[in-house]
């Protein structure tokens, strides 16, 4: 199958290929959905390392249970449900002990799942974030891009921008706050919504 054909194949077609023994076809689904899954999980989980593990776990568990999956149904909601179940398991375990531990702040973030068990907020806010980023001045967008996409150390970035590291940190904090407010405004104006 050509790359283009792989991109356009429906989930059901890909799943049928996997069922007939083409296990590499599973990677089509991985490439198709890992980004969406990362968005949802990152919204509730503060550790990027843990997020990558949750993503891997979800894909592995989904693969193991493929026989039980109705191939006529969309794959992503099922995959997301598996990932969220794992996250909820973690939340249940955290509840008993986290209030007394250093992980309390991360627990607070994870605990938001209780108010949003289907993680709809994450999807809506990601859409709103995209719109907010489009309106961001280029120099500010570049700061986020350098920081998040290239994982550049802040002191190195600050040096290049001829800033003190503390000044760069202030800018980053302001940017995050501005994005939070922008997202809230867009959602309030009904410009969010989930992606299909």
């Amino acid at each position: 199958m050509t790359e283009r054909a792989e991109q356009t194949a429906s989930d059901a077609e890909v799943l049928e290929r996997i069922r007939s023994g083409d296990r590499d076809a599973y990677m089509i689904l991985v490439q198709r959905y890992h980004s969406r899954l990362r968005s949802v999980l990152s919204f509730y989980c503060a550790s990027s390392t843990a997020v990558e593990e949750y993503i891997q776990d979800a894909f592995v568990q989904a693969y193991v249970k493929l026989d039980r999956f109705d191939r006529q149904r969309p794959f992503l909601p099922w995959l997301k449900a598996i990932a969220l179940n794992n996250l909820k398991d973690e939340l249940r375990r955290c509840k008993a002990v986290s209030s007394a531990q250093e992980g309390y702040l991360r627990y607070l973030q994870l605990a938001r799942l209780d108010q949003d068990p289907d993680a709809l907020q994450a999807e809506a806010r990601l859409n709103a974030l995209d719109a907010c980023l489009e309106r961001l001045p280029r120099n500010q967008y570049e700061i986020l891009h350098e920081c998040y996409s290239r994982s550049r150390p802040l002191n190195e970035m600050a040096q290049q921008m001829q800033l003190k590291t503390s000044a760069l940190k202030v800018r980053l904090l302001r940017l995050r706050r501005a994005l939070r407010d922008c997202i809230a405004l867009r959602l309030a104006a009904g410009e969010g919504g989930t992606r299909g």
Partner: protein
Amino acid sequence: MDRFDAYLSDYLDDELSSEGTRELRRLTGGAPDRQNEVVELAQVDGLLRARFAPDRLEQDLVRRLRLCLEGQASAADTQAGVMTRIRRPARQPRARRGLRLQRMAAAAAVVVICIILLTWFRGDTRLIVARFENAPAGTSREYDHTVYEAAAGMILRSGDRVKAPAGTVLVLEGEPSRCTFQTASSAVMRITNQGVCIDLENGGLEVEAAVQPAGRCLAVLTPEVEVTVVGTHFLVRASGRESKVDVGEGVVRVADLQGSRSADVKAGMSLAVTREGDFRQQPLILEFMEAEAADLQAPMQVLADAEASGGRYIASLTGEAGRAAFRFEAPLAASVYVWARIKAPLSEADSFYAGLDSRDEMIFDLAEGRWNDTWQWTPLGVRTGKQKQDPFYYITAKRMFAVGRGTHTIDFRGREAGSRLDAVIITSNPDFLPADTVEQ
């Protein structure tokens, strides 16, 4: 920037110290607005991480999943029962928040033992998932500096530090292997590209792995040695400056990490390796016991003989009566063999019944065809037939006892009056020979 903003900024930038964490928590405690602020900005941070996720994350994920689903070893590399070396697993990438690095550095200061399981996808969908099968009170897992109480069924995650009392059992699903902590232990779980890895910081871990099918293998790493096995039952203990590998079944290859020394450790043997690189191999079980020190039941009695070890031996002067029980400990399931120092001057006084744990009694001929008035070491054997050239004589073969972990007894029950027993050696080494063994 005020203090709250400064700590919040550090938190979002993964630069918050433990002290800062406590301070930020203090500043947010009882202040819902501030808690909201932390959570909302952390959520934005998460969305930005996802939005700007570098391409390498996708590549890493695909690579990990391919390895996870398909396995990496080829069937040609690993055949059942044949040892194969595999590469040391790559270290975990530096955690974004820098915590795991500290943990790994601490772990590196103590003995580290890694167990790597490779899976080979063979058309089914069985995969390895590590979880607690049994979690006694006091079992906990720590992740990102947060301690969680462990429970049976809980799945373990990469980076988890497990505090396990004796009896805690981890199972690897899709792979019939069990890991049992024998003493209070501390271990860090790691998921490598190759599979599951357990860094044993201290304590003892018993691993029971089924004979591995082609393409699947099991390996153990320590800072001193690399151990490679294929389907075996072994016990790893880490304490101070020494690692010890006890092998109950199969064969284990141990090599130092410099590749300058290696040793095959066979079933029934134990290898101790020190930080200085000393290899000491000895039987897993090797117990010498004077017969008179056994638990005796009359009319089995202690008698004197200057040529006997310690000047004393035991015998029953009444046929079909009396008993001697020799107790020993097996650190893990193994096969054991028994040597007896006996004297059988006549064919009418040359046998006991022998069994394990009061079961499976069989006649033990002490010196078939070798009757004389001297003490001699003979392996505890079992009759397998009669000699063709002289059907009066029995053919005997060395008897093997399969024992589980724990306390056992080898029992000698009186059969022919006057059969004499001076001492017993119980060993797991099938090739063991007492120093003064008479060639047979």
